[in-house]
């Protein structure tokens, strides 16, 4: 009988992935709702994680015909201790199963939710569902349009112009030595024998002729080893490496003046995080520049950006000036996609707002792919007015007001609606 042991370990992991997809698809509404809740309620640092999704049991139940409680039935159980025939036992509560534990678990009518873990990717998939940045078509379509050729050693296959002569000849020498060595050794031995025979006494003509014939054969064999064989040829190998042009830099501008309290900062934080997460979907490399400002602007690291407290007045334009400086110095638009995200409570020194608008319109927006402004307060001040006027003119500029965490998600949907679906 033919028997075999097959190693299947490398084949087909995740065979159930199709089934899992179908499961997610079936419950996409609940999942979407859960993700929305998660985005509203979560701490920022935990944003890029999976999420436990709860689905009520009844929604995933697969009904079948089954027996219910009641009627008469006889069950056999093991492990009788002191019952005798005719004993009467009080009916156990919560089920007439006569102590039958299986009954209770089989029915699966429990109210517990079915809980499962949505992976980070799936979470993000749902989160970013049908979002795409405007004006992005060019960059997205040509995700890796540029190639750079690199040398990558040698290969045995290539075009003649890449032939590497030295390498090829070196290989040929080695091959000739290796292939001819036996024959040459034999030849040497025969030649010695020939000399011996020639110098020996007596009639050796027959033996000499024999050896000479053998020598001739060997010489011919050595002569037939090709000088250069196709297998010797080596070519310079060049590989085309895609150059990711999809690099983006995201400028986070935040007002840290006294009027920005913790709650407002928190809203701003979420706004930045969401934009960042969104960019990670589209760009291989993302730089983030944090600029905080009160009356003066300053480039800081993330920790200081979110967690240090400052007080003082507010001059928004200082941040815009700094942003432009940094962008011009470090992020040429030929290589970088520049995104700006600004959060503020709308408070500004009133003579400054007009200047902000000019800066944005003339200097910054031409550099940027997109600039989003979020005002984390309700009241409209002069900065809001100036920006509203600007946003009406420019497609790459959007402004929104946000007053609580649950509003951020819808804001994003509006900010980055798919092209064509009215911005």
């Amino acid at each position, binding site marked *: *009988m033919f*028997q*075999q*042991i*097959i*190693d*299947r*370990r490398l084949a087909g*992991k*995740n*065979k*159930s992935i*199709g*089934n*899992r997809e*179908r*499961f*997610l*698809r*079936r419950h996409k509404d609940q999942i979407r709702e859960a993700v929305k809740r998660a985005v509203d309620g979560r701490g920022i640092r935990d944003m890029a994680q999976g999420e436990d999704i709860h689905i009520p049991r009844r929604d995933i*139940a*697969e*009904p*079948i*015909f*089954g*027996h*219910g*409680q*009641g*009627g*008469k*039935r*006889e*069950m*056999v*159980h*093991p*492990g*009788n*201790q002191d*019952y*005798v*025939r*005719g*004993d*009467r*036992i*009080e*009916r156990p509560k919560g089920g*007439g*199963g*006569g*102590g039958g*534990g*299986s009954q209770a*678990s089989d*029915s699966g009518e429990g109210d517990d939710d079915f*809980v*499962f873990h949505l992976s980070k990717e799936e979470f993000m998939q749902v989160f970013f569902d049908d979002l795409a940045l405007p004006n992005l078509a060019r960059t997205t379509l040509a995700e890796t349009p540029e190639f750079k050729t690199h040398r990558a050693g040698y290969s045995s296959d290539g075009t003649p112009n890449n032939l590497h002569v030295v390498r090829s000849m070196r290989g040929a020498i080695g091959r000739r030595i290796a292939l001819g060595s036996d024959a040459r050794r034999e030849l040497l031995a025969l030649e010695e024998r020939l000399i011996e025979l020639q110098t020996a006494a007596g009639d050796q003509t027959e033996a000499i002729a024999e050896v000479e014939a053998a020598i001739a054969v060997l010489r011919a064999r050595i002569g037939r080893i090709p000088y250069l064989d196709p297998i010797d040829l080596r070519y310079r190998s060049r590989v085309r490496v895609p150059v990711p042009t999809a690099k983006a830099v995201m400028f986070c501008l935040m007002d840290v003046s006294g009027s920005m309290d913790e709650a407002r900062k928190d809203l701003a934080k979420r706004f930045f995080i969401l934009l960042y997460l969104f960019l990670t979907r589209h760009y291989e490399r993302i730089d983030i520049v944090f600029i905080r400002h009160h009356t003066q602007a300053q480039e800081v690291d993330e920790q200081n950006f979110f967690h240090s407290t400052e007080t003082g007045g507010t001059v928004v334009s200082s941040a815009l000036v700094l942003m432009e400086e940094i962008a011009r110095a470090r992020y040429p638009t030929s290589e970088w996609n520049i995104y700006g995200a600004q959060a503020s409570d709308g408070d500004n020194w009133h003579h400054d707002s007009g200047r902000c608008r000019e800066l944005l319109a003339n200097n910054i927006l031409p550099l940027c792919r997109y600039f989003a402004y979020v005002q984390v307060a309700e009241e409209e001040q002069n900065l809001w007015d100036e920006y509203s006027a600007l946003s009406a003119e420019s497609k790459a500029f959007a402004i929104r007001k946000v007053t609580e965490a649950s509003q951020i998600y819808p804001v994003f949907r509006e900010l980055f609606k798919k092209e064509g679906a009215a911005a």
Partner: protein
Amino acid sequence: MSAVPVDFDPMLRRAMRAADIRPPPRAAEPLPAPSDWSFELIERYHERIKATAERFGLDTYPNQLEIITAEQMMDAYASVGMPVNYRHWSYGKEFISTEKNYRRGHMGLAYEIVINSNPCISYLMEENTMGMQALVIAHAAYGHNSFFKGNYLFRMWTDASSIIDYLVYAKNYVADCEERHGLDAVEALLDSCHALMNHGVDRYRRPSRKSLAQELADRKDREAYAQRQVNDMWRTLPAKPEKAAEESSARRFPEEPQENLLYFIEKNAPLLEPWQREVVRIVRKVAQYFYPQRQTQVMNEGWATFWHHHLLNTMYDDGHLTDGLMIEWLKSHTNVVYQPRVGDRGYSGINPYALGFAMYTDIKRICQNPTDEDRHWFPNIAGSDWLETLDHAMRNFKDESFIGQYLSPNLMREFRLFAIVDDEKQSELEVSAIHDEQGYRRVREALSHQYDLGSREPNIQVWNVNLRGDRSLTLRHSQHDDRPLHDGAQEVLKHVARLWGFGVQLESVNGAGDVTKRWSVPAPPP
């Protein structure tokens, strides 16, 4: 009669007699027993197990052992143990909950999965130690395998050689339908079919054996023919009025109640399209394939457990196994056959491994060392050749009849079995019988009954179709000991209505023939 397979020949399948077996000389040294397995070692152990199994005349399909990872084991769990299956969200649900429980350590995975196919595929998990692999090979590749090949239910209902091919076909067909008719349509259809899966089997009629090629060739004809039949039945040409009236009272459809709901729907549902009929058929076929497994849990697991126990012990006696390896598999073995007592934590009914293993062991004991009691209860087998008797028991029974036939008083005492009657008319439960002289028969009967699928699952049949009126379908539930249906029935009926295309009623009828409860679902919106 020429179509009868050769191995039905009684001469060929005569069991080997234990008396004929001569033990081989003792091995010089045992097989190496490191904790890590290697392909070479598995090969050597397998050879030895195979030789031992052949010595006892175990008749099996050829074996195919496959090494898989834990993830793959979970994949296999999710698709009801089959290596390939059509896609459905419920399998995804199964996978997710298995994975979750496994990751949190709530459950260990089974050591093995074995597929009733030819060749018989056994999965060995990569995490298993060498000792466990040996156990799994003896258990699955020889125990279960010989059961699949020998038991009459499997011989009758499943075709081991074509199941994998059929599932591949089913998977492709369903995928094809998804493409042509949309994921939602197929999903809804499969949901409805799954709801009726347990009622999609022929319980008594034996199916014809068909190869996959035949199935495929027949499919086209069937689609055309079935549609014609259905059209014919639902012909709405106006008949002569007086004749119609006469006919409707005379003709009843179906003429006799039908137990196989899916079959009835496949053949008669008026609005199903040909592809939908084919999907119904696929679900029905798969249900039918698993039907014997549901009826032979105790026998099948018991048989495999008995044989891994017997084979490995014999190998030990022959000097092939080390003490350490024995301890290792015996530990798993005792876990598997542990039977908690009623009231213990973790008690969830009778453990089929424990009961089955104990019964086969007990039969062997009755053959070898019968007591007077055994001679009285089992005059035919007491003192007979144990191998022949066991073989006979494995081949010709299902759980219900196996217990009814072979459960001995000795075993009832050992398990301390007792029966409890739960009657809703009484305020208390009553102990109807225990393991004593007056109770043996009653306990045995009750336990046997407990394994009767007919009493475990509600008996629901197609009762009537209103051919001339609203085309509604009436199902009838015949109550068993007045046990009602649970509340899920209404939901299931919605699925029936979706398949049937018109309104559906369900009547629950008690022992006296009175309808005690009715459910009704209107026709689904078109």
